[in-house]
């Protein structure tokens, strides 16, 4: 493995006083496609937000190209080359396709390469070129997903973070989207992929991490993970290793909350 482009060291993060990601560590090498797998609530999206800077860390460090970027705000990480295609696409429905794409290249570095970025996006997603003047919200879910990925590519990423690109798409469209993920990977862009659709993700990724209730419970090559029983368990929701203590704690918290409510 070459020097990692991204490394998480014991990263914890969450919302208000609940921890969604608990002391996770992972590495992504330059040029690699790495996927994060796990069921609902496993902490995949939170990990993604910690990488892109959309939530503050509760502990640990995020290193990007050898530098600690834990304290950097999200918009500066985009300028550094970490671009996200978010869960649920989050395109701007009333803006046109072109305007959405241009927004992706807002930072100075990407703006200089805007023309090249547009060409790249159009070769990858010819369908977007046909719909440039159309309001983004009027497109199909698959096209909107293409737009979300295209918009992230317009930021000239070194590390492209894709959060659930298959969410809510027809099986055929899932194939199309994953083919384009492969095509992007071939251009040398490192990809961190979050997916619930483990089978699809493991066809494009080289390595993967399995998350369960906020912890990395397994890591390995795509081929290993495809075989692994743990992957099955993490998805079916069987009790993952090391989670017993956490669950006890949570139950205790719930009981306390219940008591608090009865006092009030």
């Amino acid at each position, binding site marked *: 493995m070459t020097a990692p482009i991204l490394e998480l060291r014991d990263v914890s993060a969450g919302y208000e006083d609940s921890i969604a990601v608990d002391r996770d560590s992972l590495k992504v090498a330059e040029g690699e496609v790495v996927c994060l797998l796990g069921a609902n609530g496993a902490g995949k999206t939170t990990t993604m937000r910690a990488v*892109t800077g*959309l939530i503050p860390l509760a502990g640990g460090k995020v290193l990007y190209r050898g530098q600690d970027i834990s304290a950097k*705000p*999200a*918009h*500066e990480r*985009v*300028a550094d080359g970490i*671009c*996200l295609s*978010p869960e649920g696409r*989050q395109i*701007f*429905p*009333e*803006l046109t396709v072109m*305007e959405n794409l*241009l*927004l*992706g290249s*807002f*930072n100075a570095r*990407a703006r200089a390469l805007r023309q090249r970025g547009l060409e790249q996006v159009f070769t990858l997603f010819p369908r977007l070129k046909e719909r440039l003047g159309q309001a983004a919200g009027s497109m199909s879910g698959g096209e909107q997903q293409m737009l979300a990925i295209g*918009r992230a590519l317009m*930021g000239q990423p070194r590390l492209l973070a894709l959060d659930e690109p298959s969410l809510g798409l027809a099986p055929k469209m899932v194939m199309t989207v994953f083919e384009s993920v492969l095509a992007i990977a071939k251009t040398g862009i490192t990809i961190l992929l979050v997916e619930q659709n483990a089978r699809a993700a493991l066809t494009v990724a080289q390595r993967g991490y399995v998350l369960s209730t906020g912890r990395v419970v397994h890591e390995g090559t795509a081929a290993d993970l495809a075989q692994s029983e743990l992957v099955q368990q993490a998805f079916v929701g069987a009790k993952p290793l090391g989670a017993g203590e956490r669950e006890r704690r949570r139950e205790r918290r719930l009981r306390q909350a219940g008591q608090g409510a009865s006092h009030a």
Partner: protein
Amino acid sequence: MMSSRIWLVVAAALALALFLPPFLTPGLDDWCTRLSTLLLVAISWNMMANAGLISLGHAGFWGLGAYTAALFANATHMPFWLSFAPGMLIGALFGVALAYLTGRLRGLFFAISTLAMSEALRVIALMVPKLTGGAEGLFVVDEIRPDRTTLTRFALCLSVGAIAASYLLTKSRYQFALRAMRDSESTVQMLGVNPRLYRAGVTALSGALASCAGVISAWYTGYLDPHAAFDLKITITSQIAPLFGGLYTVAGPVLGSIAILTISELTRLHFGYSAGVGLLAYGIILVFGVLVMPSGIVGLAKRWRMKMGRLGAAATSRA
């Protein structure tokens, strides 16, 4: 070229603004000055709304501008036009402070904090009579007040400037970022835009424009008191004008301001014998206007043009 034509239009409008005032009757002159101030606050309000920041505190900017200019002018006897500099600067700074203090508050929460801030300013103006004259008010020194024509010229030129500024803003790349902030500030941040910076930028510009209107009104009336300078009516008309004309558009606040001031004058003249009836009619027209034209005059014009376009196309295809 697109841009050179715009400058031509701006130059023509400025020439008109300089040329016209001496020929106006006092009534029309008064109308033009009030139109200028309404235009400035309406454009300013629309600018913030475009970025998703609904303000209920524009009276705050207005009063701040008015008091700053009046106090500076009284203290230094500076020429009236120079007083716009401190007035607008303080307005802009207050805008930045507002952006900083509200942080990531949005929607209703943002709106309520702006209302609170504008009310706080009014109370402060009441509570420091040594500086502001308190409830008794503050007179602007008479010798430095400009004559009517000069002030009207100046006011009209400033509103032309504000329209041009808001047009240029919509043509710039910042417009995308601001427009997208209305949908989601976190998505914008994910694309590499610093939402705090942009929020501060738009509130600063908006604050400067609204304060500018306050400065004009201070020179126009020559007298300030906290109730008039921080009047909630200013806040309300500053949003009715863009709503009536067409929200989030350049032409909207302009057309809306002209329309509502015309309607208010006409109802006042027509029902002159009783002020209450006039106001009631004015209110009813505004309510129905907003109900009938949900996207304002601009939206109505657009729909009408499309209809005419279709009719035209049908006619040519038949021929």
